[in-house]
């Protein structure tokens, strides 16, 4: 297992983890209607920064705080940078990752995890494996995506967006909202008090590229893997993907029931942040850890390409 020794969130709701948690606890949402942010795009509801952000500076600013908090040296050979993103800096994923590692003077080639909406959870799983294999001592996992005309137009063509703030798991749900944010978690292989990443699992539905399996096959298998040996009643919170699209939430309900987790408290954060894509898995894990404080927290995500991922974190 690996241990969380630092974290940070920069989002439209706040400039650090604490201000983000406070905003969520007091029910603030970053979602707003945008009518003329991008040319040709129909009005949409999203959580966007008031001032448009540059990808690399946003990531480095976010990671700096988390690295400082962790006490590790970013320029050490023992540290690996892992970037979770779907569209990176204007469709370029590798160059920004190299720039971020260079910014911190890190000598190792960074890893970019691009596994659709599950990237942020998958990146944490990659960090866990590399640290457990003894390849590095610490991993800086950064999740980030910035909304563009490219992304919004595509989701509109998919008829996947809700014109108003999304309603996960509601019978009235009309689709998802997009969002932008950066989030960072620093993991270490050295035993440390506080939250630790216990287990992770990734499964494909092998069913459809853009629609989840109706039997929740991949998500069910992930949940089964990460809850092995633990009683449902001992799980404090399960952070669902909860995009508020008709298919996703129905699929997650099926997967939860199949895994015997239907009575576990769940949380969906998209009404606060929208779907922050590459950032979602990291951001929603940090908020989950902060809300639970002590106990077991499960985070699950599903995405295009039929991929699903889940992790189990614990704090005693």
């Amino acid at each position, binding site marked *: 297992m690996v241990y969380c020794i630092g974290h940070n969130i920069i989002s439209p709701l706040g400039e650090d983890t604490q201000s983000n948690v406070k905003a969520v606890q007091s029910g603030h949402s970053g979602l707003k209607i945008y009518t003329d942010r991008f040319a040709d795009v129909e009005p949409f509801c999203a959580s966007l920064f008031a001032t448009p952000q540059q990808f690399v500076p946003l990531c480095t600013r976010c990671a700096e705080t988390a690295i400082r908090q962790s006490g590790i040296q970013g320029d050490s050979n023992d540290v690996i940078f892992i970037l979770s993103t779907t569209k990176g800096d204007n469709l370029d994923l590798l160059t920004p990752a190299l720039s971020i590692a260079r910014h911190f003077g890190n000598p190792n080639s960074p890893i970019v995890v691009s596994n659709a909406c599950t990237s942020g959870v998958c990146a944490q799983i990659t960090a866990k494996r590399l640290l457990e294999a003894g390849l590095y001592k610490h991993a800086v996992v950064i999740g980030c995506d910035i909304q563009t005309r490219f992304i919004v137009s595509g989701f509109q*063509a*998919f*008829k996947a967006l809700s014109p108003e703030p999304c309603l996960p798991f509601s019978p009235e749900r009309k689709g998802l909202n997009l969002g932008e944010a950066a989030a960072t978690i620093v993991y270490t292989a050295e035993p440390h008090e506080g939250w630790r990443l216990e287990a992770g699992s990734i499964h494909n539905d092998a069913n*459809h*590229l*853009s*629609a989840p399996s109706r039997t929740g096959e991949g998500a069910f298998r992930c949940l089964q893997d990460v809850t092995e040996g633990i009683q449902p009643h001992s799980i404090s919170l399960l952070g669902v993907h909860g995009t508020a699209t008709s298919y996703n939430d129905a699929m997650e309900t099926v997967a939860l029931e199949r895994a015997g987790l239907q009575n576990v408290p769940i949380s969906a954060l998209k009404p606060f942040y929208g779907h922050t894509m590459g950032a979602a898995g990291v951001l929603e894990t940090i908020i989950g850890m902060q809300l639970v404080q002590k106990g077991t927290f499960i985070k699950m995500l599903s995405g295009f390409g039929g991929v699903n991922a889940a992790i189990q974190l614990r704090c005693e």
Partner: protein
Amino acid sequence: MEQLIEQLKQQIIESLNFEDMTPADIDADAPLFGEGLGLDSIDALELIMLLDREYGIKLADPKAGKAIFKSVRIMAEYIQANRTK
């Protein structure tokens, strides 16, 4: 009408990438989804975009496509009644 059906068949083949298929291979009265051409949900969204791009018809609700995309003939009839270009 027959001319519109032929043109529509060609546009469907092009926009849905039906390699090796000619308009003659598509039965104007056969169902587009399920049996027949076996289209899926992404194809349905692509057909919605085709209506917009080629005929200036905007479908806000993707569910409305179900009734329109029953066959090429029904689609052509809908286009004739609603086209803006």
